[in-house]
């Protein structure tokens, strides 16, 4: 019970961010067409669509959260080992 059960929310968010960050760009995202790199010859993509937004979000999370996730995961693992 961390913070009256808000720890559960914390774990869920950490696990979700982990799940996004673990997606492989080459093996998974490129196959289903979720890469953010636009095809150079085909004009402007629809930047406002929901899918484009999601792709953007996934790539942003993968880029931004890679280093902090290492630290956060280490903290959570140590906490769980000692006090969990």
């Amino acid at each position, binding site marked *: 019970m961390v*913070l*009256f*059960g*808000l720890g559960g*929310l914390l774990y869920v968010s950490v696990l979700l961010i982990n799940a996004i960050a673990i997606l492989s760009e080459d093996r998974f995202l490129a196959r289903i067409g979720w890469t953010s790199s636009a095809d150079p010859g085909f004009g402007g993509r*629809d*930047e*406002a669509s*929901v899918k484009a*937004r*999601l792709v953007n*979000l996934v790539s942003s999370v993968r880029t931004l959260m890679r280093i902090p996730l290492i630290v956060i995961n280490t903290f959570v693992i140590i906490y769980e080992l000692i006090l969990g």
Partner: protein
Amino acid sequence: MQRPNYSNPPPAHSPPLHHPVPQHVSTVPQLRSPPPPQPPSQPHSGYGYGQQHGGPGAGAGAGGGGYNNNMGPNFNNFMNDPTAQMMGQFGKTAYSAGQEYVEQNIGRFVNVSALKHYFNVSNSYVGTKLYIVLFPWWHRPWSRQQRMSNSGQDGYYLPPREDINSPDMYIPSMALVTYILLSTLLAGLRGAFHPELLGYNTTLALLVLLLELLVIKSGTFLLSISSSSQLLDLLAYSGYKFVGVIISLLASELLTHLGLGGRGGWAGWLVFLYCFGANAFFLLRSLRYVLLPDQGGQGVGVGGGAAGYTVARSQKFRRTQFLFVYSYVVQFGFMLWLSKV
């Protein structure tokens, strides 16, 4: 010029040879390598302060009690003034720095003046707003009023005291506290009180608020709605459902006491459904200007211009769908979760 040149090469033998310092400082000769302390009227930098502080301290430590007695009055005279000055300055600086730090850090997370705007309510506003939240069916103008600022053409929204459609934070915060206390009280009436229930209910309510903010923020991100409304507006709007939850909790408890349907019976469900419908309608009307900012034809969102007419149309359709889903489906889930305590 000549003499220092001569005396400099053998520095190892110099300490016993020359006594350049004044008499009262010569009691600790080998520790006094910097020039003797100046009268206290001299402006002191941080460096000078550190030196003066270190010198006598070190001397006292090395010399022991006898030296301290010898230099006692001089020491006091010499240290008092600059130290007091420095400490005064230092304290002032530290105090102002601390104040600035607190202001910065609180002001970064919570905009205090923006919060004050939300608590600028009057009695008539609170009464009317509660009536609107519970009976939103006949309320007619839903748009917030703006007032042009006297300098530029950008308007700002009127505070809740002057505009009935403006969101406030007073009702949501009071309703939140009331909900926490009421749900614990009801548990106590059932004979199931436990002090942990207070914390549990608080967590539940805050969790619901957080999740709602998350839902609406991700929705506005995915639909690329660039609205000028703030996070506090959304927080206020998501807090209004506690009013409905409180009413339904109270009513179901009263009806249970009257024997009209048990807990979770049809009467309690009816009240809950009415409160949910009223709250959802209220949100549907109030959040229109948040989620559909391109109202009245000015600015068609990100599509932009006349070229993206069909895009804007489909976008608007999708936004309307999201608004509906948010204010009916999501709210139903959360209100059900809140009223099942």
